């Protein structure tokens, strides 16, 4: 845990540099806002709520940003804070970042996740439907409702189940893409390939899944991995780049074998 109580005053004065953009077709730019009296106990998004309240009262249009659960699990929040996706704390989504991480007088730059596959819809809100299309291409196990065997019929070694769970924790936020200089989606795709490929239930479709997911990932305009590991550093769920090795192995194996 890197969050510690800041030593300064319990209310902060901040300068915010925020990306404003009317819609996907209109070019955007930074605007500067000043806030005072921000409590260190606020979450980052509650600080933005305060800004929007102030803008509304002043008769200016509030800043659009995606958010929902505010518990770090839905994956909706998606800000680049001072150049880092989800801000400075490791393993932390934007909604779980708290203002005690900042100091009185700080300037904070806030931008949307940037990638050509994630067009900006408005201000800080982006379109991540490319991720859904990748999942629709093969990010599943085909199992008709009502037909499966008893859940204990296939024992799964605890180690495999735990590794699958590590990968399955991906929240699909896209921070890995935003952090990558190539805007690669390899960490996201590999997390799904690992999750399903490590389980016995996922074996029948393992090869076709790797081919389909990678093909769709390329079609969406995501870049390729050049082993910088920025994705792992930015991932709020601590998804490991070891998953990318699994993806590469499955993809190579599938490419060289009979596509059945």
């Amino acid at each position, binding site marked *: 845990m890197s969050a510690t109580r800041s030593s300064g005053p319990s209310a902060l004065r901040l300068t915010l540099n925020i990306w404003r953009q009317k819609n996907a077709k209109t070019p955007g730019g930074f605007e500067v806002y000043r806030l005072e009296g921000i*409590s260190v106990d606020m979450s980052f998004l509650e600080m933005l709520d305060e800004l929007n309240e102030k803008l509304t009262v002043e008769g200016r249009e509030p800043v659009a940003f995606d958010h929902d*659960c505010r518990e770090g699990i839905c994956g909706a929040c998606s800000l680049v804070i001072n150049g880092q996706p989800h801000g400075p704390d490791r393993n932390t989504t934007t909604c779980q970042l708290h203002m005690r991480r900042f100091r009185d007088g700080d300037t904070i730059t806030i931008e949307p996740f940037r990638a050509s596959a994630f067009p900006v819809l408005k201000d800080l809100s982006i379109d991540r439907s490319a991720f859904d299309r990748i999942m629709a291409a093969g990010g599943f196990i085909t199992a008709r409702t009502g037909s499966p065997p008893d859940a204990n019929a296939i024992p799964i070694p605890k180690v495999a189940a735990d590794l699958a769970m590590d990968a399955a924790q991906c929240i699909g936020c896209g921070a890995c893409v935003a952090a990558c200089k190539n805007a690669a989606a390899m960490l996201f795709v590999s997390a799904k390939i690992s999750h399903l490929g490590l389980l016995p239930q996922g074996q029948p479709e393992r090869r076709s899944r790797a081919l389909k997911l990678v093909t769709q990932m390329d079609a969406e305009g995501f870049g390729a991995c050049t082993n910088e590991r920025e994705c792992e550093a930015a991932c709020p769920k601590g998804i490991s780049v070891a998953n990318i090795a699994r993806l590469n192995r499955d993809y190579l194996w599938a490419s060289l074998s009979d596509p059945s």
Partner: protein
Amino acid sequence: MTAVTLGDSKLDSKCPSGPLAARWDKHRFELKLVNPANKRKFHVLVVGTGLAGASAASTLADLGYKVSAFCIQDSSRRAHSIAAQGGINAAKNYQNDGDSVWRLFYDTIKGGDFRARESNVYRLAQVSNDIIDQCAALGVPFAREYGGLLANRSFGGAQVSRTFYSRGQTGQQLLLGAYSALMRQVGEKRVQMYTRHEMLDLVLVEGVARGIVCRNLTSGAIESFAGDAVLLCSGGYANVFYLSTNAKNCNVTAAWRAHRRGAYFANPCYTQIHPTCIPVSGEHQAKLTLMSESLRNDGRVWVPKQQGDTRAPSAIPEGERDYYLERKYPSFGNLAPRDIASRSAKEQCDAGRGVGPGGMSVYLDFADAIQRDGLAAIRAKYGNLFEMYERITAEDPYRQPMRIYPAVHYTMGGLWVDYNLESTIPGLFVLGEANFSDHGANRLGASALMQGLADGYFVIPYTLGGHLAGRKLPKLTTDHEAFRQAEAEVRARTKNWLSIKGQRSVQSFHRELGLTMWEHCGMGRNRASLLAGLSKLAAQRSEFHANLRVMGDGEDLNQQLEHAGRVADFYELGELMIRDALHREESCGGHFREEHQTPDGEARRDDAKFCYVAAWEHAGDQDGWKLHREPLEFENVQLATRSYK
């Protein structure tokens, strides 16, 4: 709106008769089937893609129906089911500790304080085992033991270990399973997915639900969709309290618009206050965070015996602590059901024994568990929850007890449905938290996920056939006059929020509404306070309609505009909740009327007068609501005083 008037009950629950265990089988046999070649001719509209919606949409599409699914989020994977932490119940009896379908049924009926239908709850317990099998097949990584078999843990209100889990992220994993099944159908073009679409009205043609009107949240366009059935899987209404554990965008609008079109709203006053949440830290607070009930497996709840004791917890000796749940409920201890644990926490804080800022919290202490099992074991079980706690409070729960306080979490009330999950509007089905059906007056932990998936995977695929094969559904398109009219109304409402041009933000109104609901219709309710709440609400609502300010326009993404429509519906719902709470002159489950309690402060039910479902019909803005009663009949369990002592 005027006072409550009593209506004649026209509610037919359509519950099958005969032995409880055979009812669902018998009913499934009697339901009409749709021939496989005909399925593709039927178009089903599914609103919401949480556990109920995603499981229903994927299963129906796999059966061959043409499905369109709608969600307000940017991806169907982000529905609020994802935030459920602790687990999902099933009667597998894998632990050999005495569980059975009957025991799960009985615990759920008793947990709900005998205010749910026997037939529905028994069916829920029956299909619970199929859910675990289905989820495992889809690749849900449930926790396992070293032998490779599934692990279980305990939850409140049960003395067996029947809860399946994936660390502290069970809802996420179950939802991603259902989402992956849904995405498969999207890829195969059997489901058309509409994200960032909000349903703003239901369209009826000749009295049957035949379509919906949505606002495309990205473009602002008003879009209509016609179909042969509408499935509402739009979740609960806890955000009427503003501060709740629900995601910020959870709302009642889809359900409320259906209510205004004729769907009865059942038991709106049954709300669940979850005992273990992180306390409010200040006025800026926009959201409350739950700490999973699973923590009560190992955490012990206590307060200092002495009032106003401000010593650090470590400085308070064992003998000066009151482990009040263990003291009051020795057989269930810290695993007392949610309503009881919450009320007990409030009781301690009201009596001046609360801890932390303002004395508005109690301790949840892991010191004994850490000493017994070791730090590593506790970290493996609850690590992510402890981290979340520290991130929010800057306190380390490995070193000092967590501070917790109850917060609004779930709503047992919802649109009335029969055994087929069909509302009082033919063709409108309601699944998951959006309906009222299975939890009575209090839901047990790990039962919400079970119900959402039961409805979607295993109930609606059968019961929908009864509607589609049993009714004449003439072909129609969105050119029909009924769509034009509904679209015009939606446009007018949306435009109205922009044209008020007052002084106050939507958020400021929502916060004020939430506080009023919490103070007047929260954990403890009484007649005088409920009446005062009604008049406060009326005043706030008039100000909202006169003094709201929404910036921007309706032509693109406008989150304040979305919020305005939702808050407007919350005002109306809030009024109905208070009226329902006023009329129910008894205490049961989460509904605690202070006038009706035993000498030791437990809820006192009145089975002679209130053993029924209260289903409210919207009778127009002038006439208020009409009450319809569906009597609850208990043939298999004995109505008893609920005791966890």
